[in-house]
């Protein structure tokens, strides 16, 4: 039984590490879907876009993928702000966000994926960095550095976002826009501008999350699809828009997935998060740590 105990410990540890990475992937959705109520199902596609940009910069210039993704963050922010402007003018203003807004994001998801397939093909791409390869051995526990590094930077990202939301004026305005747009307007703040900034930030996190993804595993364009359910499962489970909740839920999903793939085989792992999502939606839509 000692052998399987080791397996269990390892599955737990890698679940926690992967969970932190999932939290970074979900942070953007927690902002857009959880706080702004914009159902951006194209978020995983932007993450894959981030992965490919990190890959190009890494392959051409030899830059570290995480550094590269931080450099292109402003471009992602601008992309997000632009998309929100279109979304606002075409759907939110006309009150059609439920049906056509969803179709809009679904279309964006599809366009991004097919464009990447056309340009890069369906081969798996990967990046090179000094921390990809070596593994830390702590007794019976193996920690691959390629998972540890994204995990640490993810935690930093979540912490920074949480500080931004709770300590700065913009952050508080973002929280306020979710609660009462009219009140915010009476305070002399333009809610559309605040939402544009928040959506820009949400897409900017996709750049970093994309770099994490391609560090952890080789990436091809359709990988994003299995993240759609995972990301929304975590967001709903974490109580829609609460970052600490997102982190807890992400680690929970990470642990359950990692145990499932260790003991039942990796082909069952995708069903875990989706099953979790269906169950959560059916039983407790407010999430584990619902407000």
């Amino acid at each position, binding site marked *: 039984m000692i052998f399987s105990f080791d397996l269990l410990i390892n599955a737990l540890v890698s679940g926690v590490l992967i969970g932190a990475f999932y939290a970074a992937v979900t942070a953007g959705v927690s902002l857009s*879907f959880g706080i702004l109520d914009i*159902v951006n*199902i194209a978020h995983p596609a932007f993450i894959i876009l981030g992965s490919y940009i990190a890959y190009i910069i890494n392959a051409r210039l030899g830059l570290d993928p995480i550094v590269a993704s931080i450099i292109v963050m402003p471009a992602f922010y601008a992309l997000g702000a632009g998309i929100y402007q*279109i979304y606002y003018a*075409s*759907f*939110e*203003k*006309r*009150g*059609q966000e*439920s*049906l*056509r*807004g*969803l*179709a*809009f994001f*679904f*279309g*964006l998801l*599809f*366009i991004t*994926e*097919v*464009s990447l*397939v*056309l340009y890069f093909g369906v081969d798996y791409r990967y990046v090179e960095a000094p921390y990809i390869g070596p593994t830390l051995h702590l007794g019976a526990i193996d920690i691959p550095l390629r998972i540890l590094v994204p995990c640490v930077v993810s935690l930093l990202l979540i912490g920074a976002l949480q500080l931004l939301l709770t300590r700065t004026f913009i952050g508080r305005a973002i929280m306020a826009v979710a609660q009462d*747009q*009219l009140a915010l*307007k009476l305070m002399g703040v*333009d*809610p*559309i501008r605040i939402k544009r900034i928040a959506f820009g930030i949400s897409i900017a996190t996709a750049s970093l999350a994309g770099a994490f993804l391609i560090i952890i595993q080789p990436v091809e364009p*359709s990988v994003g*699809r*299995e993240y*759609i*359910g995972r990301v*929304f*499962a975590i967001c*709903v489970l974490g109580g829609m828009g609460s970052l600490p909740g997102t982190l807890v839920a992400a680690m929970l999903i990470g642990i359950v997935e990692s145990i499932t793939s260790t003991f039942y085989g990796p*082909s*069952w792992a*995708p*069903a875990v998060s*989706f*099953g979790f*999502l*269906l169950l959560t*939606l*059916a039983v407790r*839509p407010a999430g584990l740590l619902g407000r």
Partner: protein
Amino acid sequence: MRSDLFLLVCLAVAGIVFAAAFALGNDYYFFAGYVVLQYVVLATAWNILGGYCGYVNFGSAAFFAVGAYSAVAVHRFHPLPIPVLVLIGGAASGIVGFAMGYLTLRLRGAFFAIATLALAVVLQTLVVNWDYVGGSRGAYIVRPEAIAPFGSYIRYLFLVMLLLAVGAIFAARLIERSRLGYGFATIRDDELAAEASGVPTLRLKLIATTISGALMGMAGAPLPYYIGFLQPSSAFGLDYAVNSIAMPLIGGTTSWVGPLIGAVLLGSLQQIATVTISSAVNLLIVGFLLVGFVIVAPNGIIGLVHKYLRHQPDDELVGRRHVSIDTPGSTT
């Protein structure tokens, strides 16, 4: 037009289509036409839930695949004629639709849409791990070369799909003009108000998911015989999901004509683009058309036509006017 007369007209049109394809003599037209007709059924089925009730289903591919895989499972056990398989496939995915609705329809809008995406992945995982129907390796179906009165087998499949398309359109039109259809429209326009006025919204939504799911499954059941080799990744392909959303939205979602127009236009366009350009590019075209149409022409081709004829102002077609005080620059 009365319903029985409408059915006769539909059957007459179907007869002409079949005769025309027969007269062209080339089996390619049957192959291409089958795909277009399959999209007519899928788009019409999607529209019953999406267009009439306003609930977005991203999991069309899952219902479609349930139909296809129940056909494979039955075929493995004992080969049956295709119309029977269509009924079995429809029943199976109707049940899945009902269960799906029961689990998620108490949630509104976006959650339902996300849950349908989740359902697609859960079902795909189940099929990948189910060895009886081939698992991730896929399953071969050996179809007969020829069948008695039609000549080649593809003509028979084409006829089955043609009749299914007629059935789907007839059902959609029937629903649209019945109490059921008005009930669906109240859900789409204002679910809370509908419920407050005594409309049994949950029951109606369950009926809609079941009918919509069953039709999608029926469209999927002949698929294994059409392609001969069924793989999870092809049966659950994202292009089915995208197409069955794009076609009604491009055609117009308020009546049965929209999905038909959208499916015939987009389906033929894709068949042409696949032959002349490439199959990846034609998917890109669908994506851009979908995004372009929802931004520029929110009521689809039908909306554009209505606007052109000035029968009614564009806003009333949407069915709901958005009144807001918190969005600057809003005109309503």
